[in-house]
């Protein structure tokens, strides 16, 4: 019986490549990983956005209307809805002059209860330290 913590760290910009999208969809896949594991074993995911990666969190992304592809905004709301922890680096938001008003902070409209945690980089470093495995996107 073990719970293993996986840290999904997103540093890349959205859309140019699939990288950040696959970070979210793989983190969300932790919801169903139990079918492959022994009783009592499970994966505990945490998602953190750092560097340019914080721009994945911007509100009002119209990728679905324009390019027919789910926006990162929608993926992040899905993650919150499913009670995945989503962290964003405060120093990096500051660098771009962005505040909590500019980014996805909750998934209330679809019934989510968890909110985004805006945290100092040090906190994200601690998550990387305490994680069993790192997946850096």
């Amino acid at each position: 019986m073990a719970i293993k913590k996986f840290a999904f760290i997103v540093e890349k910009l959205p859309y140019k490549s699939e990288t950040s999208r696959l970070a979210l969809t793989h983190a969300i896949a932790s919801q169903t990983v139990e079918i492959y594991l022994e009783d009592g074993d499970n994966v505990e995911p945490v998602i953190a956005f750092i560097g340019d990666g914080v721009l994945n969190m911007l509100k009002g992304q119209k990728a679905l209307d324009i390019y027919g592809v789910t926006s990162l905004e929608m993926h992040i709301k899905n993650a919150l809805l499913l009670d995945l922890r989503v962290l964003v680096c405060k120093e990096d938001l500051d660098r771009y002059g962005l505040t909590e008003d500019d980014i996805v902070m909750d998934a209330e409209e679809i019934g989510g209860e968890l909110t985004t945690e805006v945290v100092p980089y040090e906190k994200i470093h601690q998550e990387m330290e305490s994680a069993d495995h790192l997946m850096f996107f």
Partner: protein
Amino acid sequence: MAKLTIGCFSSLVGSMTLDFAVKLAEAAVKKGHEVDLWLSGNATMLGKTRQSNFRDYSYLAGTVEELIKTGKFQVTICEACGKARGIDKEDVFEGVKIHSMDWYLASAFSADRVFHIGGE
């Protein structure tokens, strides 16, 4: 002997990243380790049947087939990433598995080391 899970999200031909992942897997298997290779995104193309071995392009299918025969190596492509590209069980060569993304997490769960190559 230990277990290494490699996740590769980069494209088959055109990025030497998948060459790196396969060479690393080969070296680990030769040393007696067990290797799981998860192919997501464009890397799912590695499973495609009938890849031609041209000198002007990377050709990895042959090495992968040899590795599968050792019994120490599993290669699995991401089901959704594959289908989005028109690659499903009809399109992959023998020994290549297809699973949803949770398979990668389960493989990582029991791995001693996870080498995640997140894509460009």
